[in-house]
């Protein structure tokens, strides 16, 4: 149990948090201290006062935490806690990447958390392109793996313990996390574009440890409370959904927009769903893989276009323009393919917008057509003030992407998950880090 300093004393919020933490711990706590103990000042008063009175039968049943706090504050009784096992705090299995293909499962110490942070028992973590790239190539965008790193950033879980100044959460709350924490003091943070913060902390990206472990700690203001009807697996995919939502906002997609999405990756499919939610009336999705296109089709794309490897630019442009009935207001480039970039200026209306969501490994050549026709080219970096909106889209039923999750694996089977991801068969893979998880339906194929 943490030491009580003079300043914490019998602060009601502190006791609420500490006592509620203790309820979930797998230990029995009794208040017995040496007589000359200078610590636990507030609790010592409880003992002293109870000595003065005649022997009181300590109350064992508390209806709720508030009652317990009130009784402790009034020094009426000596609280006793029954053993209660909710979380196994001695098991913090984590997936740690040591080098290319060298992903090891090892026990790590339970993370420490500060007064405004919460300790989360992770439930689901989505495997993202970044994680796959780190395992196979040790690098992604401009992040390079130097030291052993716990991967994973698309996470949801249950709050296990709370810091003493946390006000928004209690143990037992179901949450999803926003994995980027800005510095809060630079110009970009203050102007509301904290995704551009140069000192941003991104968990799961070197050198910051991620969420692929049984427990991790996170600041309370970057956690979101999940409504009852939003499942943990949907919540784990809030991260790519927030990227898609940010991309749609950057593109200015609104009611009546015509949209072309190049690339039916998870981000592409989620962008399609977000564009629909924003009011877009005609959405085309293109890709080189037919099974991904099939997924986009079942999830509601107005039209899908299969791009053959040998397809010529003008032929592909003609096909897209026919399917759309003209040029698009917004083109979301989610594939990184040079062909998609080349034709994006042709398929976008003058005055329209091209949004570059996925970085192209081949560099980006800007068509002079974009300059002559005032087509804006806008980049997307993560997300910024989008998480709550993304959660609302799921919670209000405007979006349902659970059919995008094709594979589920336990944390101990993560290498199997990676091998499947490498083959390109899967669309989205979820790793279940809760040791008590049992697959409820056979999704893996």
């Amino acid at each position: 149990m943490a030491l009580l300093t003079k300043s914490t004393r019998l602060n009601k919020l502190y006791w609420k948090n500490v006592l509620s933490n203790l309820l979930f711990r797998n230990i029995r706590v009794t208040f017995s201290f040496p007589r000359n103990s200078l610590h636990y000042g507030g609790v010592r008063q409880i003992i002293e006062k109870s000595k003065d009175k005649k022997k009181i039968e300590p109350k064992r049943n508390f209806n709720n935490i508030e009652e317990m706090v009130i009784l402790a504050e009034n020094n009426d009784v000596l609280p006793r806690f029954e053993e209660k096992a909710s979380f196994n705090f001695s098991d913090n299995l984590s997936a740690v990447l040591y080098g290319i293909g060298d992903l090891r499962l090892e026990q790590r110490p339970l993370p420490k958390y500060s007064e405004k942070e919460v300790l989360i028992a992770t439930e689901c973590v989505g495997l993202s392109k970044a994680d796959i790239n780190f395992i196979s190539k040790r690098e992604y965008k401009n992040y390079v793996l130097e030291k052993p790193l716990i991967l994973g950033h698309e996470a949801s879980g249950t709050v296990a313990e709370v810091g003493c100044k946390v006000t928004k959460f209690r143990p037992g709350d179901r949450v999803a996390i926003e994995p980027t924490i800005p510095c809060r003091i630079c110009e970009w943070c203050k102007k509301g574009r904290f995704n551009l913060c140069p000192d941003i902390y991104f968990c799961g990206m070197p050198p910051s440890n991620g969420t692929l472990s049984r427990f991790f700690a996170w600041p309370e203001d970057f956690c979101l409370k999940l409504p009852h009807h939003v499942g943990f697996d949907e919540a784990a995919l809030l991260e790519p959904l927030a990227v898609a939502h940010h991309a749609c906002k950057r593109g200015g997609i609104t009611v009546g927009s015509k949209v072309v999405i190049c690339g039916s990756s998870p981000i592409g499919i989620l962008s399609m769903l977000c564009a629909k939610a924003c009011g877009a009336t005609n959405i085309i999705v293109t890709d080189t893989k037919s099974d991904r296109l099939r997924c986009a089709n079942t999830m509601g794309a107005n039209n899908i276009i299969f791009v053959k490897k040998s397809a010529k630019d003008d032929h592909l442009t003609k096909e897209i323009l026919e399917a759309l009935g003209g040029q698009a207001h917004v083109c979301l480039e989610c594939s990184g393919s040079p062909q998609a970039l080349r034709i994006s200026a042709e398929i976008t209306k003058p005055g329209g917008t091209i949004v570059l969501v996925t970085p192209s490994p081949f560099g980006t050549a800007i068509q002079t057509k974009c300059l002559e026709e005032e087509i804006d080219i806008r980049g997307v970096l993560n997300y910024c003030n989008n998480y709550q909106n993304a959660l609302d889209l799921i919670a209000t039923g405007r979006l349902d992407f659970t059919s995008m999750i094709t594979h589920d694996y336990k944390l101990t089977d993560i290498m199997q998950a990676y091998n499947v991801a490498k083959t390109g068969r899967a669309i989205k893979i979820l790793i279940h880090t809760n040791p008590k998880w049992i697959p409820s339906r056979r999704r893996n194929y």
Partner: protein
Amino acid sequence: MAPLPTDNLTAVLYGINDLRLEQRPIPKPNDDQVLLQMEVVGICGSDVHYLVHGRIGPFVVEKPMVIGHEASGTVVGVGKNVKHLKPGDRVAIEPGEGCRKCNYCKEGRYNLCLEMSFCATPPVDGNLSRYYVHAADFCFKLPDNVSLEEGALLEPLSVGVHACKRGGVTTGSVVLVLGAGPIGLVTLLSAKAFGASKVIITDIVENRLETAKKLGADHTLLIQPNDKEEVIIKRIIDALGCEPTVSMDCSGAETSVRVAIQATRSGGVAVLIGMGKSEMTLPLASALIREVDIRGVFRYVNDYPTALDLVATGKVNVKPLITHNYKMEDTLKAFDTSRTGAGNAIKVLIHANPNRKL
């Protein structure tokens, strides 16, 4: 090493008309703060209002509170994490620090933060003292050509800058400023800096309009207190030659706000900066059918660097606004001058550094 300073004379407001100078311990900066030797602190209408009425709206002076928030100082100590400032730097102090965690702060509108900690707004202490600590990222280093007096004036100037941003003032804008007090004058200066083609400023006091003319107003209009609204609006439009595209009320008077809404061109913006009665009767139908947007202004947000740039590059000259200078020991006299407006007072400055000559 020089002996540690011990004199931290502080101006503390105990109650209505009860402002006392007393010694307080010198604060220590935490890791993200700087310790400042205060140099110049300006008196704002809100400081005078707290002195005279003991409250502004829901903010009530319940316990003794240090007054003053328009300030500049010299850095004498830095916290561990502070990298962009060092002892000896002269800075302007942005008095309001948001919580940095709520949605308002994260969305870039920290002026609307509900947990905002603003100097001299109860219960937060102000900075009219010899020494003061503040968050380092809300202290802006003054270049050599900007004086400490101008640094203190960045606070009202930021209000003017924020108001012009809210109004969308740009090249081609025709601006009506109602009220030529300190806020009206900084709004006038900002509007010209933002590129407005014509600015007209109105007031009921002649000498204020003379200052406005010196500061670059294209037209000035003296209004009699009993003039009818239609007459005022007609005179404004006659002087400008057209309807204004942006109207900025800097007085808070009901007539002024009514004129701001009715005089603005269709599709324009009426910006309300001055704080008056909480309930007013306004011609909203006029705003509705002509699509005139009505936008409020509360302090400023991310405007201090802009205001500093304007002063440093000479686009805006705030020196004519400084009319009176007092030593810190004469704080009560300074507040008297500001309250009564004696000697055509616009901005009264108090010098908190005893070693610096007035």
